[in-house]
């Protein structure tokens, strides 16, 4: 079976080519079915690989496809690595990816350009699989940039709209800023280890001591790449804008898979990160600040997708905190559960938007639970999961992160717990404003309200089941049940030393407190938005300074525009006028003018009078002879 693993990325690539070539000659159902079938086949192969890897805990499998870049000391083969880490990612990508493909058949039903959509979606899956299957940093980087391209193409899918195009461009460029860091990190890896393949780099890294400056530099540079791709401070601003893409894209790329690439990359490089405690602190602090920061913004957003987008940024911050404190398997655990519940939440949001005739503002929603019972039910599960209510999936991974962070640093633990509170608040705010209370939209919208077709609701139900029970693969120690996920990942992750397991007392307290807090929050939010019928104020009302600051996302976009984008253009155009045309070229032309002027002087001697020429020639000869005599 391992010999067929190359098919996993190749099938979606095939789908991309077939759908791209057939293009508008096929119906939306057919293009959707081809695309989904390809991902399903990849999923099935990934499942067999899972059992293969699970049974056989021997060495990871390397599958070399061909030599890619090979010259001098550089020897980069296009090869895949099948081990426990990549298999987990494969399952998430192809599994959740398949569900989202199926959902898209319903969601994109009225889209005339559906083939382009499904072709891009398949292409994305291809690059994402390359990213997680690559057995060296360059193949990973190829997938890394490739998913960025697909993200660009899909955010700007409706390319008549200039705002969407700008959002797409912003996503690509912000990612590229991170990619430069990643690329420099790869160069430093190459100069340090003489190779970029995981096997060689990680085995050579064992010879380095903890805190080595070069390793620290490498890990910091790689982390810059992760900041871009996984939307952390200060490069996160593209992700909320990326919501311009069709909603299935937001679910697949901007929630479940691509944005977790940064976390995957650090887990993959855990050998290096374990040697760099300083980087660990940087990662944890960046993640922590991002988690808090994005959660506060989430409190005041009124666009259903924007709330979820900031929530994603915040949850990714959680994962980075886990990585930073060395809990690599916990971070990955959260990647998996987050993929379930966040994909679910986005798809539910899509279902709502679909029913509301493309309305995304929650101030115009309300009371949708009657017309959209399945969407409502699954959204509630997703909300409970992300808020960390036991026994839903998010509870296990989130509590585990909190427990690991508590061992590491108390202030971090406090801030992260605060973020959990904020998460519960903005999620239930979203939930109540959307599904409860009175309908606040137009009459036209009201008559149009309908539950989505089965092709959309079935993926929702599957993801709801996963969000409900997905956490059981990672039972906390006090339950006495095995932590299947951690056991599975054991051979791959090198753990940093811990001061022992968290005490039972602490775990129980944590659970009880968080459950009570959660119930209080739910009741309070319900009371505020439903019983008191508060609806968030819009732009037209003057907001309190702090609220206004949060509502406007701390003006980060405006600051970037004022500090980077506009000055760059401004300086460039000044340089273009003053230096390029006004200075360098003037010097060149000036040189020419001097020559011309000099020629004008010397032209006087070109009289055309042969007598004068002969005369000056003789003078010249005499002068030369005289010189000869003198010297």
């Amino acid at each position, binding site marked *: 079976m391992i010999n067929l693993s190359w098919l996993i990325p190749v099938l979606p690539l095939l789908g991309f080519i077939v759908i791209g070539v057939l293009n508008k000659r096929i119906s939306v159902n057919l293009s959707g079915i081809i695309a989904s079938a390809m991902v399903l086949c990849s999923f099935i192969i990934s499942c067999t690989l899972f059992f293969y890897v699970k049974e056989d805990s021997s060495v990871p499998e390397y599958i070399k496809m061909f030599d890619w870049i090979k*010259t*001098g000391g550089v020897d980069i083969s296009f090869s895949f690595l099948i081990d426990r880490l990549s298999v987990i990612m494969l399952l998430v990508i192809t599994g959740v990816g398949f569900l989202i493909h199926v959902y898209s058949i319903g969601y994109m039903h009225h889209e005339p350009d559906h083939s382009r959509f499904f072709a891009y979606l398949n292409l994305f899956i291809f690059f994402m699989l390359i990213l997680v299957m690559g057995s060296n940093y360059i193949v990973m980087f190829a997938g890394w940039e*490739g998913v960025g*391209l697909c993200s660009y193409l899909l955010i*700007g899918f409706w390319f008549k709209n200039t705002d969407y195009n700008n959002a797409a461009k912003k996503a690509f460029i912000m990612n*590229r800023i991170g990619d430069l860091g990643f690329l420099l990190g790869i160069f430093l890896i190459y100069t340090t280890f003489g190779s970029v393949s995981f096997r060689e780099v990680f085995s050579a890294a064992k010879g380095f001591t903890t805190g080595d400056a070069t390793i620290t530099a490498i890990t910091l540079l790689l982390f810059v790449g992760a900041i871009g791709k996984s939307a952390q401070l200060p490069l996160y601003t593209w992700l909320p804008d990326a919501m311009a893409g069709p909603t299935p894209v937001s679910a697949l790329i901007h929630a479940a898979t691509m944005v977790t690439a940064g976390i995957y990359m650090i887990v993959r490089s855990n050998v290096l990160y374990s040697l760099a405690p300083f980087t660990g602190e940087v990662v944890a602090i960046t993640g922590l600040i991002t988690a808090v920061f994005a959660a506060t913004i989430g409190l005041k957003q009124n666009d259903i997708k924007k709330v979820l987008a900031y929530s994603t940024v915040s949850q990714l911050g959680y994962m980075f905190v886990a990585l930073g404190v060395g809990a690599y398997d916990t971070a990955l655990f959260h990647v998996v559960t987050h993929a379930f519940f966040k994909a679910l939440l986005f798809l539910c949001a899509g279902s709502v938007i679909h029913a509301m005739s493309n309305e995304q503002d929650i101030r115009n929603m309300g009371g949708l639970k009657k017309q959209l019972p399945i969407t409502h039910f699954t959204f509630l599960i997703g909300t409970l999961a992300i808020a960390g209510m036991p026994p839903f999936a998010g509870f296990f991974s989130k509590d585990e992160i909190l427990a690991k962070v508590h061992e590491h640093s108390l202030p971090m633990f406090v801030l992260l717990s605060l973020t959990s509170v904020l998460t519960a608040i903005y999620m239930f705010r979203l939930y109540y404003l959307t599904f409860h209370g009175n309908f606040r939209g137009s009459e036209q919208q009201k008559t149009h309200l309908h539950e989505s077709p089965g092709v959309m609701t079935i993926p929702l139900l599957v993801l709801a089941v996963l969000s409900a029970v997905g956490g059981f693969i990672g039972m906390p120690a006090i339950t006495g049940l095995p932590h299947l996920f951690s056991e599975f990942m054991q051979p791959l992750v090198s753990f940093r030393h811990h001061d022992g397991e968290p005490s039972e007392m602490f775990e129980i307290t944590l659970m009880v407190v968080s459950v009570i807090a959660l119930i209080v929050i739910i009741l309070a939010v319900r009371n505020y938005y439903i019983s008191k019928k508060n609806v968030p104020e819009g732009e037209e009302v003057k907001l309190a300074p702090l609220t206004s600051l949060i509502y406007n996302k701390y003006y980060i976009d405006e600051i970037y525009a004022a500090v980077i984008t506009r000055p760059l253009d401004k300086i*460039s155009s000044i340089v273009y006028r003053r230096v390029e045309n006004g200075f*360098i070229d003037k010097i060149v032309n000036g040189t020419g003018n001097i020559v011309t002027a000099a020629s004008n002087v010397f032209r006087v001697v070109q009289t055309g009078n042969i007598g004068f020429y002969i005369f000056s020639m003789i003078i010249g000869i005499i002068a030369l002879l005289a010189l000869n005599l003198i010297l």
Partner: protein
Amino acid sequence: MLLLALIILPLIAAMFCLAPDVMPVRMKALVSSLVSLGLTAYAVSLYITDPGDMLAFDTWWIKDLGISFNVGMDGISLLLVILTNVLVPLIILSSFGSDYDRPRTFYALVLLMQAALIGVFTSMDGFLFYIFWELALIPIYFICLMWGGSDRIRITLKFFIYTMTGSLLMLVGLIYIYLQTPGTHSFAIADLYNVSLSSGDQSWLFWFFLAAFAVKIPIFPLHTWQPDTYTEAPAQGTMLLSGIMLKMGTYGLIRWLLPLFPQALNEYGGIIMGFAITGVIYASCMALVQKDFKRLIAYSSLAHAGLIAAGIFSMNTEGIQGAMIQMLAHGVNVVGIFFIVEIIQRRMKTRSLDNLGGIAHINPVFTILFMIILLGSVALPLTNGFVGEFLLLNGIFQYSPWMAAAAGLTVILGAVYMLRSYQQIMLGEPREKNNEFTGLRVSEKVVLISIAAIIICTGIYPKPILLLTEPAVEEILSHIKQVY
């Protein structure tokens, strides 16, 4: 003999082009260039199996002065001959949609240019090299002068004087080294390589040679002829200039500057790399503010060329191999993108970004091909641009991480200006005039699809190209290393 045929064939074809005939002249030119391409393929197969003496030709030319007509090919030369002979048919084909006055002269000049370029890339004699070097300037000068835009006379003159000045300095240097050769003197490249120059001589000769190459590439700040000339020249002229002719400069660095002046290189290489990288950033910023798409691409080409030059001055295998493969990649991509400019101009009668928009709605094939060429240009992995840029930046990184970090800004800025212009031209609300944009001519499709195919194929599997040039690059580097 085969190599000689590669030089002579375009010359003969050029004469046939000048003669009136029932066969359209552009077909004659195309057939000739395709035969050249076929011969090149044969040359590659010979090179790999058994070159024998088919790929070299050596006879005395002016025996008393030690000048011989000596042409030969190693991997470096072969790659550039491939570049030339792949691009010339595409360039000729790209002209099928334009109606030029005096087509006989036009195509004869293009073919003359081809012959001269192959001569430059294969000369193994300093004097011969110089002859071809200057010969290549003549046809392009007339192409720009006779078929260029409104401001062509002033700009072509500037271009001509600029490059001539650089070339003459190189000639002075060449003669000086020639005079240092033992016995009756010789221009043979091996004899020139063997001259041991004092470090004092090296330092001034280095600058004299550099002048010729740096103007041609061009390296910042000797570039001001370039945006003007690229913008004013007719499309095919721009393609010849940017696709092939600028590689004369980078080729010159590798073939002549590096082996001749290793000590001076050690001393000044870093400075030149600094200038080249400054140029990369500078040109990228200039590209950001251009409104004329052709001028924007001219600046982007300047940035790419600067990176190639910087990679050469890193003086390691990765950097120079990166330069080699990037010469090929840049040549193909830049011809593609200038052709995109030309296709837009043919239909919309404008190149101004402000007046374009929404073309993607009516021409999906063109959109896809434009996107692929753009991706090659911004060096997305699995396109040809990535292989080159990766190796170049890697080479520069080994020389100096800070230089690489600065040069790496091209990764970001390139994406900014390319995506901006793509968005402005292709996306957004369609313009009224866009109805002109239905379909592509067959010749246009053939050119763009060939280029897109090369971008992807050599991006996924660059190994044969890297293998082709590696021994020759190591050979060049061995000249440098002997000194240290």
